[in-house]
């Protein structure tokens, strides 16, 4: 059964988004607490303990699972908050927790042996040996694969490890090995690894600059675009830089990941679950994207043609889409 059914794992930045995801046909939602213990620590986002408990109950009533994301790296001397988050997730009745830090995995394994542990994409486990390490040491049940792998890589990893895998199907494209990228803190002083925010809004500035819009992260100018170009977030890996006498999107363009066209291949590779990225996005995004993928997966299960292409383009970053590293030639 597992091999033929692709689980749809959906983001919930707020209780309202959780309801929207459930209504749109999510099999599973993932969410985080309202602090720096998760990698989407944006102002006004996420769940307090009461909301988490209610959210889990609501999801369970509707036959939907809840994963709690605790995937930042605890700062030295401050591990208590992260331990608290693990305890709270267990108390709220979460179906699994998503972790990246070795010390925290160890804590969860010892304190809550019965609570399923998933390995976060932030752990950057991109090969069979790494996955086996985490499985042997912390009995992880699922690994969220980094966005830097091709479909062939994914298939090979699954074959080598026989592990449950979750892969990104929609959302942002991360060209760097995640959890180990210090570009944002290099430019802002705030670390995504501890604070849970890449390109924090507090440091984002848009300036009008002679028919251009200039986007800056702190004091670093990351892009200049003409007013008829689609806007984009000033993320360090998606800025324009000048190197070798040429100005270009050196690392990655402002573009969204959409794997809806390659769902059959992902399924054939043996993937267990598809992840929709975007806890920081609105519930309108959640409804639209989850709804589209629900339909696509139902079409896939029924063996009919998938009719979803193009539907989500406006939702993608910069209004453009790519299948990212999944297809050869990306790297």
């Amino acid at each position, binding site marked *: 059964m597992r091999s033929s059914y692709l689980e749809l794992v959906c983001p919930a*930045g*707020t*209780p*309202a*988004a959780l309801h929207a995801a459930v209504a749109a046909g999510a099999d599973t939602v993932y969410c985080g607490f309202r602090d720096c213990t998760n990698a989407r620590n*944006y*102002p*006004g*986002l996420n769940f307090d303990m009461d909301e988490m408990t209610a959210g889990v109950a609501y999801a369970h009533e509707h036959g939907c699972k809840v994963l709690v994301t605790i995937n930042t790296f605890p700062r030295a001397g401050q591990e208590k908050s992260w331990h608290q988050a693990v305890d709270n997730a267990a108390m709220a009745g979460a179906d699994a927790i998503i972790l990246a830090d070795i010390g925290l995995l160890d804590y969860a394994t010892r304190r809550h042996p019965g609570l399923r542990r998933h390995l976060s994409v932030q752990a950057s486990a991109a090969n069979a040996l790494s996955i086996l390490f985490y499985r042997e040491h912390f009995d992880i049940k699922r690994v969220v694969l980094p966005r830097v792998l091709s479909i062939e890589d994914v298939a090979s990893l699954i074959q080598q490890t026989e592990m449950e895998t979750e892969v990104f199907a929609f959302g942002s494209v991360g060209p760097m090995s995640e959890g180990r990228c210090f570009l944002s803190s290099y430019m802002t002083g705030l670390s995504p690894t501890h604070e849970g925010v890449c390109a*924090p*809004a*507090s440091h*984002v*500035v*848009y300036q*009008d600059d002679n028919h251009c819009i200039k986007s800056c992260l702190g004091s670093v100018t990351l892009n200049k675009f003409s*007013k008829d170009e*689609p*806007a*984009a977030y000033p993320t360090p890996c998606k800025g324009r830089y000048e190197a070798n006498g040429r100005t270009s999107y050196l690392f990655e363009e402002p573009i969204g990941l959409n794997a809806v066209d390659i769902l059959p291949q992902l399924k054939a590779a043996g993937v267990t679950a598809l992840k929709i990225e975007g806890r*920081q*996005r*609105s*519930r*309108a*995004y959640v409804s*639209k994207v989850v709804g589209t993928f629900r339909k696509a997966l139902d079409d896939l299960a029924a063996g009919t043609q998938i009719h979803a292409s193009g539907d989500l383009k*406006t*939702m993608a*970053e*910069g*209004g453009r889409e790519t299948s990212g590293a999944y297809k050869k030639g990306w790297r």
Partner: protein
Amino acid sequence: MDESRLPVPLARVALRVIPETVLNRLTYLLIRRMQKIHPGLFQNLARLDAATVCIEPSDLPYRFVLKFGQGPTSLRTAARAGCSCDAAVKGKLESLLNLLEGRIDSDMMFFSREIIITGDTAVVVALRNTLDREEIRLLDDISAMCGPVSNPARKVIVRVNKFMEHIKTSMKNAHERRHSRDANEAAAKLECARLQEEIKALKFRLAKFEVRGKRMDASAL
């Protein structure tokens, strides 16, 4: 038309004709009403850092200043020029209402430049995330302001809007006809006259609505 939605053309006209003092009174009442309907929203707003956001509908002659965080939330109108807000969100009234009601993804509107954000981005992100936690149906909230007459009020809003849409279509048709070579000038004139009548009737209805608003305003004091 989706009858659960606040009709934007009507809102635009209403916001143009209602005098500013009355509008300020109405927004005050609306906020007060919304506090009763969405207590969680206001608790969450109060949890944020204190900030003011300027909301600038590009198709209206003025803008709104929303104050929230570490105290009561308030919304009032402000003149076009000069603003000391922490951040500003600019866009068509329709886009801004969609944003408020969470109907369209705000990032998408941002990518496509349907809305433009200036100033402290963190303030806008915090506000957006907080609003997005709540199911807001502005039409319901505005109708609810009318207390016992909320249902009739809602009907009036919907009816007036239908009427306006009809006018809009008629005007559009008239416009097209006038520009077509075979246009019958007499017919166009007749149509114009009829439209003027309709507009007059509409203004009248609006004025009535305005009076009703003022009355409620007075009774609320």
